[in-house]
């Protein structure tokens, strides 16, 4: 009996007390670092690109990476791959950020409208959300592009339709439960206007959940944009984006694989980084989300 307690006690004491604050895991640090880098590159693109991204260097065409003048090599027209990559990062991030924000705002507004008016407004929002979730977005996007042609603003808006239904469902559900017996109902009962109830009270309360959803949508938008651009139906030349570069580099796969590999690696790293950071944020902020 005595030894049992004696041996059991230290074991119990050695066990860490109620879950210590978990530190940020190293992979997440790496992900964050990559995101900071990529955003800095996008912001500073005009200053840090070694050459104009459209400038030709006809003497050094298809030169491989580690060339003294062109660190990442050049393409078939002698354009500097690094410069093109930097500009592509800027355009791709612009599309992805723009689209994610549009989609979050649109979805949240739709969700709030559904929660506020209920009745047929809610039915229409839910029906549209079901429709959006049931159809592959790529096909919808392609049809719109076929009918409307392409331009950067239209393209960002189109990508902004991606994933709005998730925000709408979340915003609607949380707003309804906050209104039914929670703080939102209490604030409304004080006499607050709907805009005050939704913007000052409900929005800050559900913001963390919405932000976590944004980290889910963001990499998907990057993949969608690069996929469409790869097909030649997204960002149009002379503008360039990551998908665009891969699509172009595919023609030189045998002779100059670096044209394709540099942007491809950037896409993979970026989506991976956002996913890692997003997973971590989800655990931290909102464990109820899958």
């Amino acid at each position, binding site marked *: 009996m005595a030894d049992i307690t004696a041996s059991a006690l230290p074991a119990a004491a050695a066990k860490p007390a109620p879950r210590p604050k978990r530190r940020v895991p190293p992979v997440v640090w790496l992900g964050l670092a990559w995101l900071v880098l990529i955003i800095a590159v996008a912001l500073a693109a005009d200053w840090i690109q070694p050459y104009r991204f459209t400038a030709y260097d006809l003497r050094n065409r298809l030169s491989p990476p580690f060339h003294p003048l062109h660190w990442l090599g050049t393409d078939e027209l002698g354009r500097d791959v690094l410069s093109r990559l930097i500009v592509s990062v800027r355009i791709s991030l612009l599309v992805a950020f723009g689209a994610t924000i549009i989609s979050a705002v649109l979805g949240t507004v739709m969700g709030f409208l559904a929660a506020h008016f209920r009745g047929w407004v809610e039915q229409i929002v839910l029906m549209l959300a079901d429709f959006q979730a049931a159809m592959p977005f790529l096909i919808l996007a392609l049809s719109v592009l076929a009918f409307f042609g392409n331009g950067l603003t239209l393209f960002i808006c189109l990508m902004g339709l991606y994933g709005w239904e998730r925000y709408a469902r979340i915003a609607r559900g949380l707003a309804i439960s906050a209104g039914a*017996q*929670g*703080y939102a*109902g*209490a*604030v409304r*009962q*004080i*006499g*607050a*206007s709907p805009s*005050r109830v939704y913007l000052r*009270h409900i929005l*800050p*309360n559900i913001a963390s959940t919405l932000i976590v959803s944004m980290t889910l949508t963001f990499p998907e938008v990057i993949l969608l944009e690069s996929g469409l651009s790869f097909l030649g139906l997204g960002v149009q030349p002379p503008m360039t984006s990551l998908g665009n570069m891969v699509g172009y580099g595919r023609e030189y796969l045998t002779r100059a694989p670096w044209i394709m590999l540099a942007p491809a690696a950037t896409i993979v790293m970026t989506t991976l980084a956002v996913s890692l950071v997003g997973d971590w944020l989800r655990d931290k902020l909102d464990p109820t989300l899958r």
Partner: protein
Amino acid sequence: MTGPMSPETLLALRDVCRSYSMRRGLLGRPTAVHAVDGVSLTVEKGRTLGLVGESGSGKSTTGRLALGLEPPDRGAVLFKGEPLPKDGTQEWRAMRARMQMIYQDPLGALDRRLPILEQVREPLDVHGIGEAKARDEKALALLQSVGLRADQGSRYPHELSGGQRQRAVIARALATGPDLLVCDEPVSALDVSIQAQVVNLLVDLQEELGLGLLFISHDLKVVRQVSHRVAVMYLGRIVEEGEADLLLHAPAHPYTEALVSASPEPGRRARPRIVLQGDPPNPAARPSGCAFHPRCHAARERCKVETPALLPLPDGRLTACHVAHDQANFLTSPLLKAAS
């Protein structure tokens, strides 16, 4: 209303009904559930009406109807003699400054992302009361008036105890200087040791500010402490209403009697405890006649068919019970008088 001495009527519900439609089962037709079925009551300035009943009796719905948070299907809700404006309109919102609600769950009723002081200040901002700069002062004074310290104003709801949170909710409700408070089970989520403090606070504030209170609770102990009058609800109807002392010491309705016996009063000889038989009340399946008859120890044949009306007894209270009225009639009948 009847004489120069009678206190001013704040709130009057006149034969108010509210039903919800509910579908039972997959193929079931929607059936109307009468949550509140012909309720009339009044709350006077500076006085408290206790509203008592089991869960499902419609007492919370009555509270929401009284505040205009839900429209009645039938009947009228009058505040100072005027019907309440329609829910959601500008007038309805302005009306919120004059009538407020205290909730059962203070943590749920507070925004957990804002400090307490800001939330107590919010009604002042919403209704544009006072200069913007003076509002913080006013909110601090409100905190102190409910017994919170000034430094607790910068705390967030989860950093306060249950009783403190409820005090904050009360401070917020009082910010606009309302005439009427509807308290829906305001202390039932609190520790018993805290309950008395919050109840006393409400009583003190009422005395100081002349508030009219509609105090909804299932707990007779608490109701007894605060109420001037008490109304007992059963399945959406008031079955007995009268002066608190009279009703709680000498209940006339068998249901009230059962409730009172379940909550013995300290210092009094415990009466034999009446244990209610049968199913708890289900608003979707209201029994015929007197809704209470399946559980009533005094039920007669008549109770199963004829719904008793809420009528005055000789001592002034209102009771909806065939048996109680028969007894009263017998006691006051000329036959008995002649015999004595």
